């Protein structure tokens, strides 16, 4: 649901977003983004790289952070800056359930017709993105 952006103030909470990522989603994202790094589809190569198993693309988790913000703003063209640090992998098991990422966001600054949103993304209760922020035009 689109927010009334004129009423946005520091402390405004964004509607949370829960996303489920399965192996099929990783394959689809690999094809769409042209990121074919094998740690996102091969257990063997993920394990050889020292990972617990196949992990989601950091850029897919970042895209979910973007979705949290664009679904709230109602217009992805309003996002003028998006940043994320990739701090922890999202391990995606080879089953029908996949991995669940929970995203929340809060407005931390409003100035010059722009709102800064701090985004939190959690997997198994722990943050997977660091300092994830978006700057959104609200004028």
């Amino acid at each position, binding site marked *: 649901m689109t927010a009334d952006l004129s009423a946005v103030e520091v402390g405004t909470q964004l509607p949370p977003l829960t*996303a489920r990522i399965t192996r099929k*989603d990783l394959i*689809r*994202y690999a*094809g*769409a*983004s*042209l*990121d074919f790094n094998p740690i996102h589809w091969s257990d063997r190569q993920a394990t*050889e*790289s020292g990972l617990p198993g196949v992990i989601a693309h*950091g*850029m*897919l988790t*970042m*895209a*979910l952070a*973007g*979705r949290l*913000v*664009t*679904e709230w703003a109602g*217009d*992805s*063209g309003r*996002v*003028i*800056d*998006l*940043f*994320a*640090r*990739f701090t922890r992998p999202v391990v995606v098991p080879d089953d029908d359930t996949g991995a669940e990422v929970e995203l929340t966001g809060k407005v931390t600054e409003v100035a010059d017709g722009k709102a800064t949103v701090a985004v939190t993304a959690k997997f198994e209760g722990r943050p997977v993105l*660091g*300092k994830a922020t*978006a700057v959104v035009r609200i004028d």
Partner: protein
Amino acid sequence: MALSQSFVGRCYPPKGTYEVSREKIAEFADAIGDTSPLSRDKAAAQAAGYPDVIAPPTFLTIINLDAINAIINDPELGLDYSRMVHGDQRFHYTRPVHAGDKLRITTYVDEIFDRMGNDFLNLRAEITDESDELVCTTRAQLVVRGADA
């Protein structure tokens, strides 16, 4: 194992032009679960003031990643891909990307440094349209874990 400092300040000019299609925007939106009509319906995008359907904010990873890979795969740089992770990423937009855009990407190596046994590589890319206007600046930090880190 340190990365070659000689790469700092290097600029990689565009290899070609990437033409943004409605189909690719819709495919990318599907892949991230973005259901916005602005990325699928030209009429809806135009009603919102855009020339055509617009791309989600991380769409430019398609050409950004390709440009990054061209640099890190240069054997002269000495980067061990199997030890590399994507540290962070930024997209800073002048305007949204829309279908029909003909984009060119120029990539710069801004910084190379090591900290606590890990190598850090800061890359910046400027993505321009067919009028040579800046559309987006991207910044990526890549981290190469040290042999005993």
